[in-house]
């Protein structure tokens, strides 16, 4: 199996989906001859033509709205928003149309679209290029929000997202676009959505994260193991709807939970998970649920951004504290 980066796996999945299904259309800014600013769509236009790999005008609301119209005609549009900071004009379309057209029309019209965008900080990009506002999206009923954390999951989950009959926002962790490498088999097999992946089993504490932050979370699990603490690491992967059973099962086993995300704390998705555990697993808890998150501030520009994001040290400290609690 060839070794590749996460962004190459995205490209591979797009090519595979377009090859398999003539209804798949890729659209966005610079996705054509330029192959996308992160090169995720490289080579697709040469292979599938400019009608199926469409360079749109510079208009994000349009990209998302076009997807809704195409999808209602049973095309499978895969729109690209260059950076998550430019996704906000799409929120109207996602909230008011994409996510609810099936429900509004009682199934008469549906919206099998995917909107892809890079997610998160850590690439020393200009302002507005480092957003991680996934909680905002995960709040929207009728939507799916998916974040892969490795090349093989990027491949399998993107294929699943494209084949899914409902709208999916697919957040690609920018920081590990190239840093994450792994073997990917181009077998056309999708991975399941709505399912969390247990990356590492452990008895003592559950670490839950998604996207690029799993890198630090896995490193923290290594450091904890050196201390004799066996951490279970869960890649949530789909945030909406999320795999409550795997979360609850793991916490029932370990009695301790640390949730790690790069997004700001207040109203972040970690709060949702903590609430679930409080409601449904309180009696198995041996320590308070902890959150290691970005601070409640604007994501700083390059010089300070690493201080906002959870570090291995912060995760280890939180996990140790949980393990030492009473």
């Amino acid at each position, binding site marked *: 199996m060839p070794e590749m980066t996460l962004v190459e796996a995205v490209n591979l999945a797009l090519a595979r989906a377009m090859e398999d299904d003539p209804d798949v*259309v890729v659209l966005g800014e610079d996705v054509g001859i330029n192959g996308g600013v992160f090169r995720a769509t490289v080579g697709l236009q040469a292979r599938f033509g400019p*009608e*199926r790999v*469409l360079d*749109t*005008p510079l*208009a994000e*609301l*349009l990209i*998302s*709205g*076009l*997807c*809704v*119209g*195409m*999808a*209602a*005609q*049973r*095309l499978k*549009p895969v729109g690209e928003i260059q950076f998550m900071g430019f996704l906000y*004009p799409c929120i*109207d*379309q996602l909230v*008011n*149309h994409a996510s609810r*057209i*099936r*429900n*509004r*029309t*009682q*199934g*008469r*019209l*549906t919206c099998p679209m995917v909107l892809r965008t890079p997610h998160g900080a850590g690439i020393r990009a200009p302002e507005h290029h480092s957003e991680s506002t996934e909680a905002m999206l995960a709040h929207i*009923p*009728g939507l*799916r929000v998916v974040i892969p954390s490795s090349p093989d999951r990027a491949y399998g989950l993107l294929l699943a997202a494209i084949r*899914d*009959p*409902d709208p999916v926002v697919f957040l690609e962790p920018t920081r590990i676009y190239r840093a994450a490498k792994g073997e990917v088999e181009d077998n056309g097999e999708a991975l399941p959505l*709505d399912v969390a992946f247990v990356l590492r089993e452990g008895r003592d504490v559950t670490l839950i994260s998604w996207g690029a932050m799993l890198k630090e979370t896995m490193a923290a699990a290594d450091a904890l193991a050196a201390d004799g603490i066996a951490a279970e690491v869960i890649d949530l992967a789909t945030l909406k*709807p*999320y795999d*409550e*059973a795997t979360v609850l099962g793991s916490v029932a086993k370990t009695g301790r939970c640390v949730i790690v995300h790069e997004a700001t704390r207040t109203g972040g998705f970690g709060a949702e998970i903590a609430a679930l555990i409080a409601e449904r697993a309180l009696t198995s808890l041996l320590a308070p649920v902890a959150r290691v998150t970005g601070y409640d501030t604007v994501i700083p520009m390059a010089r300070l951004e690493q201080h906002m994001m959870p570090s291995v040290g912060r995760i280890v400290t939180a996990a140790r504290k949980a393990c030492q609690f009473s």
Partner: protein
Amino acid sequence: MPDGGLPVIAHFEVRHRNYLAPDGSINRPLPPFASDAGLLTALYRAMMLLRNFDRKAVALQRTGRLGTYAVSLGQEAVSVSVASAMREEDVLLPSYRDNGALIWRGVKLEEILLFWGGDERGNHFSGPVQDFPFCVPVGSQAPHAAGVAYAFKLRKQPRVAVCMFGDGATSKGDVYEAMNFAGVHKMPVVFVATNNQWAISVPLRLQTGCETLAQKAIAAGFIGEQVDGSDVVAMRAAAEDAIAAAREGQGPRFIEAVTYRLGDHTTSDDALRYRSADEVQARWKEEPITRLRSYLVGQKMWSKAEEEQLAAECHERVEAAVERYLAAEPRRPETMFDHLYAELPEVYAAQRRELAGEGDA
């Protein structure tokens, strides 16, 4: 002039189309279809049905049996004529005020009542299954129309997307973004802006600095035409031309239908707060139904007897629809989860069971 005689590199023009004067007399030779008494009377009947339906809907709202409702009073010619120029396989993307178009396309009156009565089943449309439902967030349907048209183009289908919105909507980026894209790709889409002079309380002069809305098409690279939107003959002719051009691959068109909203914005609005009764009274002289009737009667295409029969038919049709609307089985609360996803994820299925009182919290 400070331009120092610089050359003019582009000229644009915006045309205005009108055939029937407010008194029903003819301003210029009518288009060929106007000799078809069957078509003209069908348009007349549809406008009358809409006016009757509106009156009943308002009465239902006033008596607590319908939610907020947006009437078409005074602007019936627009949506009826546009829909009449479409083919069944075309796709309509209406705003919330385009009842006339939906009814023409075969959506049942009771479905429209269900929608305004707060029931999603109204959007199920037993009629044109690919048409979009009423769009409430103003102008946000325009990009959908471009997407629908893109699908037609990609699949080489001779179909047209027809997108309707109000004058207020033309202030939104959504509409311009969609028009701009449609212009780039010569998309089979027709945009119809119903300029009824008001966006709730905001008059057109505070909505735009443009002389016409039609000229907004120029910036997107295609033809925009201003049409007397209270003249159903002009509207039908303009819609027919635009839809035919789009179908033949000539690209998008924009129609500004200049008309007047004689009623309140919705049943929740009181238009007397922002415009005078005199203004409205004056505009009643231009309204589309009397105008067409005067023409039809003058041409001996319509008689008093037919008028009476039509009134009875409208009454009967509307009353029967109201009965079916009021008799609709209530939905069980947990059905709000139906059609949320193709297959309801288990975590929400549990919430559905909770709502259904099947334990499970």
